Every structure is written in C-alpha cells, then in structure tokens.
C-alpha cells in the first residue's frame, strides 16, 4: 500500500511538472471568452483586454495614465479646427512584416464604416468624418474626408470639430491581411502593430499571444502572453496562490474586498481608480422636491462617502467629489471634499420647507440587483437622517437603462465608464443638456456653453480649464451627487516586474519582465 501511494505521488508530480509552461510565458486571467478578436467588430471589455496587446491607435496611455504618441508621432489641427494632419511613426511593422502606412489608416477607417461589416464600438468615433454617412449607407466605397499624403502623412477632415480625435482608441489594421489570409483572417492571425501577435484561441480555455519581434516600442521582454479564461475570481486567486497565474485582475467586488484584507497579498497588489464615475441621479422633472437646490445639497451631505468606502466596499473604492475620476485628463484634485454633515443637511431640508421629510412625496431609489446593497444604504440613510420617504426598487438592467435614457427614472444610483482618457467623455455625455445619457436631465445653459466650447478647443490646457469651470458649476448647483470610484485591484507575483494598471485596466504587457 505504501509503495502504491509513493508511486501515485511520483505520477502526480510528473503530471504537474509537465503542465508547467516555460518561464517566459506571462499568464493572466480574463473573466470570459473575448466576444471577438478583430478590431472592426470589437465591442466589449474582455476583447479589449486581449486586443490592447495586439493593436494600437494614434496614441496610447503610459504608466501614469497620460496620453502618449503611439502610431502617430505628431499631429497638427487644421486652421479651421475641422481636421488634423497626422505624421505617422516611421519604421512600424505589422505582425505580417508589412510596414504601417497612411493607407492602412484609411483602410481601417473605411472598414469600420462599411455596411455589413458590423463595425463595433470604435465606429462611433468616425461619425463626424466628412463622407462617413455616404460610407455607412453604402453610397461611397471610399471615405472622402481621409486623404493619404505620402506613406507617413494622413489628413482627416470633419464636418464639426473633433478635437479629441487623436486620443480616440481606434485600432489600426493591416490593409493587406484580407488578400493574404482571406475574409476569416481573424481566426488565423492578428493584423496589428502591437507588441504581441495572435497565436491561438482555444474557446473556453485561453487566448495565446506571442511576442512581435519587430515591435517599434519597448520590449516585449516575455516570449508569450497567455490569457487564461477564468470565470470565477475565487479560482483566479487560487491559481495565483498556486503560481499558475503571474498576474490577476479582480473583476468582482466581493473577491476584491477579500484579497484587500488578506495580508499575504499586501505587497503584491496594485490599486488604481477606475475611469468610472458613480452618482445619484435626481431628475427634477419627475420629483418636485429635487427642483430645490437645497434639497439636492441636503441629500449629498447626508451621505457618508468615507463610510461607504470602508463599509459597503470594504476599502475597495475612493470617495468622489466631482464628476471626473482621477487619472482621466481634466481631473481636478482641488475640488472641496463633501463631508458627511447631518446637521447642515437637516437644516437645508427644513429651509426648503421639508423639515424632517414633511410634505415630501414617497420616492424610490431605482437600481439593478448587483447594486442593491448600495441603493439600500441610500434609501435607509435618507429615511433615517432626513426623514425622506425613500424606498429601494430593483429592476432588470436593460429596461432600467432604457427608462433612464428616456429620462423616466426620478432617483437612481448609477455609473458611467469613460471610453477614452479625457474628462469630456463624462461631462459631454452625462451632464451636457442635449445628451441622451444625461439620465437625470439636469440642464444648465452656462455648463452647456462651456462644454460646447471645450468640444472645439484643441489645446489641452485651455480645454482642461473649461472642464474645471464646467465641473464647478455642476457641483455648485448640486446638479449631481458624486458617490465613489471603484478601485481596480490587480495582484502580481514576486519577480514579475513592469505590470501596471491604467484607469482602463491593464496596460499592454510589453514592459513586463520575469525572473
């Protein structure tokens, strides 16, 4: 019997050892299969995690979350502010070995717009290019507003100013790939310029990338990246503990709280705020008391942000005092904190004629199941502290989003994630009057004028100043109640260097080195 046990142990050891991949493969987790691995139909987060390592745009984000030039070395705005001339980086090679040129830029933009191509998330950034409509309807097969100068110069014109065009995350692809590999090329290869190229996608198991030896920038220092599909964060943490993963990104709040408390991870964690605002939406058209600024201020001051961070989120969040998150260009670190002030809140409510909640009609904080705890906290707090007759309503997500877009939800706690690292994404979509995503329908002419001006201001510092003014108006008017920012949490093994988090999840892994 004892001999048998020993034999088993030897057998197990042999099996375990044979499954260890070579040391120079960097292994990390993704929570599901990517929905696609081509930059045209690209439309979701997990696909973005993988493709961010294979594809690049005009600009990228550095380790501090700052925008840096990538495939464009420099650019200048047209005098009429209706276009840009981009000077492309020389010497950049696609995974196929072909050089990256202005033709590839034009090709990518056209492919994104072609009807029938199911252009995904990135296609929305092209709507204002001259000729985009004709491309979308199929009337034109060439994009009028894009002119190829020479191999490394491309000129793009718009119907209205698009000052952020250089930072839009549009991933450029190899114009020769379809000729080389056919229409289903994405299953065989990648067509980008990024530090890693596609090797294989084993559905349900992993996506494997290999180093692109001709990469123009730093690295890649590791030979390969293996994105292992791990639906459960608990499993990902166990795999990390057993050294089956070199770095993990925590996708779930509960596991985030757990790993944050566990001392054995303390020196392995990276913690960076996500580019996602959260706020209490107060629709003045639907609930009479919200029309009074003092009521809105009272609500904001009755909420204990620090208490939410330590209690509800177990430390995995940061308090938010404006509507731009740290790490996103235009963030104002000097905004005054909004401390819990029960006395002031009560006094304000009384001043507005609703002392202790008297005369206030009942109202519901509407939310979806995953955010129920948070909404329960708001309802309970507003009831206890202010006497406001508040209840929680949990609804299905899709119908909630539709109702919010239609401006039909009086009171809700919700968030908004930025698609690119500039505050305009938050301000122009969530608080600008005409925007459909202005779900609480707050409207201020002065604010709207500043946003419109910012949309035409190509100079970064001048634009940031406009954001600052606009955000101050929003906060002085108590148009919103900022809540918290989610803390992104990642863990990295000892001996693995160069892994960093941006406000938009992991940076590409070209800087990663392993012992």
């Amino acid at each position, binding site marked *: 019997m004892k001999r048998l046990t020993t034999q088993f142990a030897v057998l197990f050891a042999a099996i375990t050892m044979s499954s260890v991949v070579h040391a120079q493969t960097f292994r990390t987790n993704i929570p599901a299969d990517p929905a696609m691995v081509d930059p045209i139909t690209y439309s979701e987060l997990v696909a973005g995690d993988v493709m961010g390592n294979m594809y690049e745009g005009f600009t990228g984000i550095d380790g501090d979350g700052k925008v840096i030039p990538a495939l464009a070395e420099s650019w200048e705005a047209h005098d009429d502010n209706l276009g840009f001339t981009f000077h492309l980086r020389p010497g950049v090679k696609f995974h196929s070995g072909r050089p990256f040129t202005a033709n590839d830029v034009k090709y990518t933009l056209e492919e994104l717009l072609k009807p029938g191509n199911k252009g995904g998330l990135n296609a929305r950034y092209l709507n204002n290019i001259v000729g985009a409509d004709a491309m979308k309807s199929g009337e034109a097969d060439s994009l009028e507003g894009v002119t190829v100068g020479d191999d490394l110069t491309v000129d793009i014109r718009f119907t209205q100013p698009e000052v952020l065009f250089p930072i839009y995350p549009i991933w450029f692809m190899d114009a020769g790939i379809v000729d080389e590999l056919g229409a289903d090329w994405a299953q065989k290869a990648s067509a980008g310029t990024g530090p890693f190229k596609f090797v294989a996608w084993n559905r349900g198991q992993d996506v494997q990338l290999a180093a692109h030896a001709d990469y123009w920038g730093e690295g890649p220092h590791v030979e390969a990246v293996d994105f292992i599909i791990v639906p459960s964060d608990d499993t990902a943490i*166990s795999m990390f503990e057993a050294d089956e993963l070199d770095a993990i990104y925590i996708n779930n709040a509960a596991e985030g709280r757990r790993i944050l408390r566990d001392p054995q991870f303390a020196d392995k964690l990276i913690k960076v705020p996500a580019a996602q605002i959260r706020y209490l939406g107060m629709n003045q058209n639907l609930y009479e008391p919200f029309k009074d600024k003092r009521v809105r201020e009272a609500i904001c001051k009755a909420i204990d942000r620090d208490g939410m961070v330590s209690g509800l989120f177990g430390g995995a969040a940061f308090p938010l005092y404006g509507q731009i998150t740290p790490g996103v260009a235009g963030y104002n670190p000097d905004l005054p904190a909004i401390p819990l002030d029960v006395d002031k809140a009560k006094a304000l409510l009384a001043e507005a004629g609703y002392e202790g909640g008297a005369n206030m009609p009942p109202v519901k904080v509407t939310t979806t199941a995953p955010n129920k705890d948070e909404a329960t906290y708001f309802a309970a707090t507003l009831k206890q502290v202010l006497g406001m007759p508040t209840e929680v309503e949990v609804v299905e997500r899709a*119908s909630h989003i539709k109702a919010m877009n239609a401006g039909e939800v009086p009171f809700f706690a919700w968030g908004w994630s930025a698609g690119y690292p500039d505050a305009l994404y938050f301000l122009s979509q969530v608080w600008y009057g005409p925007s459909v995503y202005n779900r609480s329908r707050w409207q201020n002419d002065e604010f709207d004028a500043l946003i419109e001006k910012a949309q035409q201001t190509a100079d970064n510092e001048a634009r940031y100043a406009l954001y600052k003014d606009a955000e101050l108006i929003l906060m002085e008017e108590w148009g919103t109640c900022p809540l918290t920012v989610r803390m992104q949490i990642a863990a990295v093994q000892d001996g693995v260097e160069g892994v960093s988090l941006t406000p938009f999840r992991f940076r590409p892994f070209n800087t990663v080195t392993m012992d």
Partner: protein
Amino acid sequence: MGRYALRRVAGLLPVLAVMIVLCFVAIKLVPGDPVMVLLSDQSGDVELEARLRADYGLDQPFIVQFGRYLAGLAVGDFGYSFRYANVPVSEIIGTSLAITPILALAALTLAVPTGIVFGTFAALRRNRAADIITVFLVVAGISIPNFALSAMFVYLFAIKLDLVPVAGWGSFSQAVLPVLVLAIAPMGYITRLTRTYMLEVLSQDYIRTARAKGLRNRLVIYRHALRNTLVPLLTTIGIIFGGLLSGTFVVETIFNIPGLGRLAIEGIFARDYPVTMAIVMLFTMFYALINLCVDLLYGLIDPRIRLGSDGN
C-alpha cells in the same frame, strides 16, 4: 426488443417538439434584451440599436422569429450566437459538447463501483462500527455542497500539497479534482441505496434457501443478492447521470472547464438566445436518451421484465 427501442426513439420527437416551443417562449419571457447587452454604453444610439435588431432578426414579430428558427433547425442550423460576433452556435457548442458528458461519465465510473462496494460492505456489517462510520461519511458526502467541497479540495490538494493544478482542462491532472468533487455526492447516494436494497434482499427467502443449500457466502452475496440489488439501483444511476450532465455548471465554473454547463450560464447572462436554446435542447435529449437506455437495460439485467406487449 428492437421494435420497442424504435418506438421509444420515435416517442422522443414529440417531447423535443414540446420542449422547443416551451423553451423559445420561456426565453422571450425572461426580462432582458440581448441588443441592450450588445450596445453597452451606446444604449442611446437608436440607429445602431435598429441595425443590431435587424442583424439578429429581433425586429420581426415573435411568430416570424419562431418560424425562422424552426426552418433553420429543420436543416440543422442553430443560428448565430448573439454574443460572439459572426460565430455559428454549432461552432461554439461543438467545442464544449464532449466535455460535459466526459466529466459526467468519469464521475459516474468512479461513483458507481465504489458506491456499490461501500454499500455492500456496510450492509454486511449492519449496525456495527464499520457500518455506522460508512453511513456517517455518506451523509457528509451528500450534504456538503459542490462549491464548498471544491474550495476545500483546491485549498488542500492544489495550493497546500501542490499535487494537482487548481483549474483548467486538457490534462489528466486537471481532471482529478472536478471528477472527484462531482463523484462524491452520487457515491454517497449509491452507497446508501445499495446498503438499503442489499439489506432487503438479504432477508428474502431465496437467500435463505441459497444459504441452506450450503452455497459459499461469497457466491450468495455476489451471484444472488447483488444482482437483484442492481435492478432498482439502475433507475437511480440513470437519474444521477442525468443530474450530473446538467449539474456540472458549478464545478465547470470553479475549475475553469469549458463545458456545456458553463456555456449555458454565460449564454443566459448575455441573453444569447440561440446558444441557450441549443444547450437546453441538448440537455433534454441527454435526459431522454438516458431514460431510454435505463429502460432497455432492465431487460438485460432482469429477464423477468418483458419489454413491449409483443414480447409475450
């Protein structure tokens, strides 16, 4: 026997038809909207929403959608996934199709013999210490939920002892823990049932007769008692197998196994109707086929059970 089997297979068709209708209706009734999932933060883009609805045929009236689905099924086309861009359902399911049955069969192969051995062992030592300990372990095995057992096993065997990998699929060592976790509860059931049936059989007259004839104890147990225990056990094993096939999703999620259960969960969350439909259909067929096999096996184990009226 052959005609009986044929008749039973033909009987599956109406079951499948009813299931397709029920499932199609049920999926539409569940709150949620695949297009809203796909739109994510472009939920207010009316133009894009209309395009996506048209792409997936969701702009059509319910009856047209159903008709199109049936027409597709008739030629073996399960449609395209909503979540995975431009990928047919058959391709998505194809890679998972074998994994869940393999997992279930492996667990069953482990659970049935061990369960029968433990059950017999306990029955023959009725009310002695060995019996009581076995019964205690059985109750424990049945009572501890899958996910708790998985967490314990992973912590002990993968993290602390480093004998097997935490998760994954493709090698023998990766299959050890999930199969073990899946096998434990069925092992418990089979042990308990074998013990009960065995005790019942052992008190029968023919066993006393066999013993009186002077047959060796071993022969009495294995030839006479066990064989008669197997008949009622077979039904249970069939049910357990069905349960294993459709109940692997927790284990598949915890151990990162790309099987049908996990795919079903993902499909349901993403409102990926075509994938969900196809998996429900598969599970229905699995169940029906297992029942059929059990019924046919009865006749083999116990010749007294005659199948079909034309048998006499």
